[in-house]
């Protein structure tokens, strides 16, 4: 019910985007209909990944693969364990047990190598508010070892794409939330990572900005960046190539949105989600 109204507003917009994306993803979807196996195409490979905090099992033996170039939706109710799982994949948190390979590196031993190959946009807005727009780009470019010219060229290009050229010298704190989120996303793919992890990137953002945001995600995916995204907006999950739904720390469903709808004879992802989330024992 929480997303009900929002969903209707978005539904029309989503169809437009979905159509354009549909052609692109047609090919990959056919591939996905075959049974998923571990291949070299899998940029994320997770087996029996578990995280316990004391007696509480936040993530409970999850197993899945994400293919190169895919937009992978990672859904689940609040507290289902999405953020914990994502933090393990990013090398921010040690798994209690199980294995995970991200971009070919072990997430429990080679965190620093994982970090070189990923971009991450956290739930909290995480740009430096007291730095200017270009200074944020320059800082993170520098952190990933880009030289001054690379940073400058890429900043110019990204600001142009975002239509933010006039805001280059603006203090980040002075920008509206939607703009900040778009900036944070640009920053998370600034260094051309292999994978980008987005933790509820569109929370609190207006429908138009959300649409623009997804256009940016598609553009990134077209450049070959794998997108791993969590969201609470079910219309957004329809834009993903494949979707997994977490309930109580487990992955209870994983397939293309279309297959999931067929499986649960639901008219949209919203119903699929409600059907699964209601089985949750944790509240």
């Amino acid at each position, binding site marked *: 019910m929480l997303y009900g109204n929002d969903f209707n507003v978005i539904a029309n917009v989503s169809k437009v985007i979905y159509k354009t994306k549909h052609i692109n993803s047609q090919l990959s979807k056919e591939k996905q209909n075959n049974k998923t196996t571990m291949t070299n195409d899998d940029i994320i490979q997770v087996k029996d990944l578990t995280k316990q905090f004391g007696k509480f099992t936040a993530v409970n033996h999850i197993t899945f693969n994400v293919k190169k170039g895919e937009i992978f939706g990672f859904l689940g109710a609040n507290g289902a364990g999405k953020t914990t799982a994502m933090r393990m994949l990013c090398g*921010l*948190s040690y798994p209690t047990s199980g294995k995970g390979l991200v971009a070919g590196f072990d997430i429990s031993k080679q965190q620093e190598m994982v*970090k*070189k190959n990923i971009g991450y946009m956290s739930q909290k807005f995480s740009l*430096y508010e007291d*730095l200017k727009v270009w*200074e944020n780009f320059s800082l993170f470019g520098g*952190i990933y070892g880009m030289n001054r010219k690379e940073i400058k060229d890429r900043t110019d290009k990204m600001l142009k794409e975002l239509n933010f050229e006039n805001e280059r010298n603006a203090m980040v704190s002075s920008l509206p939330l939607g703009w900040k989120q778009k900036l944070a996303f640009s920053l998370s793919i600034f260094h051309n990572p292999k994978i980008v992890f987005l933790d509820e990137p569109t929370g609190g953002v207006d429908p138009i900005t959300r649409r623009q945001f997804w256009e940016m995600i598609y553009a990134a995916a077209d450049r070959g960046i794998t997108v791993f995204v969590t969201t609470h907006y079910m219309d957004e999950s329809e834009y993903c190539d494949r979707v997994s739904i977490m309930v109580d720390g487990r992955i209870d469903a994983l397939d293309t949105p279309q297959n999931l709808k067929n499986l649960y004879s639901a008219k949209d992802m919203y119903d699929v989600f409600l059907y699964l989330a209601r089985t949750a024992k944790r509240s």
Partner: protein
Amino acid sequence: MLKHLIIKEFKQLFRGGFIPKLLIFMPIAMIGILPFAANQEIKHLKVTIVDNDKSSVSEKLCEKVSASKYFTLTEVGSSHRQAIKSIEKGDVDLIVEIPDDFEKNLVKNGLGKVQISVNSVNGMKGMLANNYMNSIINEYANEMKEKYSTQQPSFHAQVFSIKPYYLFNPKLDYKIFMVPAIMVMLLTLMCGFLPALNIVGEKEKGTIEQINVTPVTRFAFILSKLIPYWIIGFVLFGFSMFLAWLFYGLTPVGSVFTMFIFVIAYIIAISGFGLVISNYAKTMSQAMFLIFFFMLVFILMSGLFTPVASMPQWAQYIAAANPLKYFIEVMRMIYLKGSGLSALITNLLAIITVAIVLNTWAIISYKKTN
């Protein structure tokens, strides 16, 4: 990588406008005002004299007491009981009671008795009041001796006097003793506690997560946080030396170079301490509470106000781990006594040991992955 992080820190520090203001006003306030406030000389003690004798001899004693800069004669009490009441109300700090046959006994037997009652709720103040009064009465007894011994051979008012000669701070100016120690406090705040608050601030805003998910090494991140404060610490120290000269005409007797060796060692030690705090505090308020707590322990156990040597043995053991203690000692010795490096080598080793322990602890306890 480090360069970009340091540029970022400097921009953030100076953009807020808070740090630049702090840099100017904090030293002025601390060096200009605190030495006066932290003065341990006690002046203007309120005294009541109960003069039961009312003779010319007792009158002279009253005059002598009220002429002293340490005492203010608030009232001439009529009775002991009434004077005690004034003490209970807090109107009076001490009572001098002169018995009714004071003059008679003094002239006849050469022996005068005076009773001093001191309010010693504040033990330190009470003790000082007693000492001051004793010395006034002794002085008075000396005068009496000179006056009467000629006419009265049996006169034997017991008097001896010690004339101390104070080295290094000949005027016993408390301010000169305090200023070098206050410089240490400034460095502690600026290089120890500010970076800690800065790091916890990033934790609270969530920006540290963005850094933790990048390939920035722990070492680079920590250095990028500390280097700006180290530089600021140096500038601040120079500025406070200038202020000490401006306000009190105080310049170090010893070598400035030796002093800066200690400044470097101390800055590293105390910023290590700040880092340890920042690694354990999750929020700004937790960090603030920890800082308040340790600030009090550091100050009270450093010899800033009370000498460490007069603390009980177990407290001295605790103080032995306090980097402030060593640095305050060093600062006073260099500033007032002009001690050289060879005399201070144990202190240098102590500060370096503390620096190594704290910084190792800081690097181990900072985790990019948890």
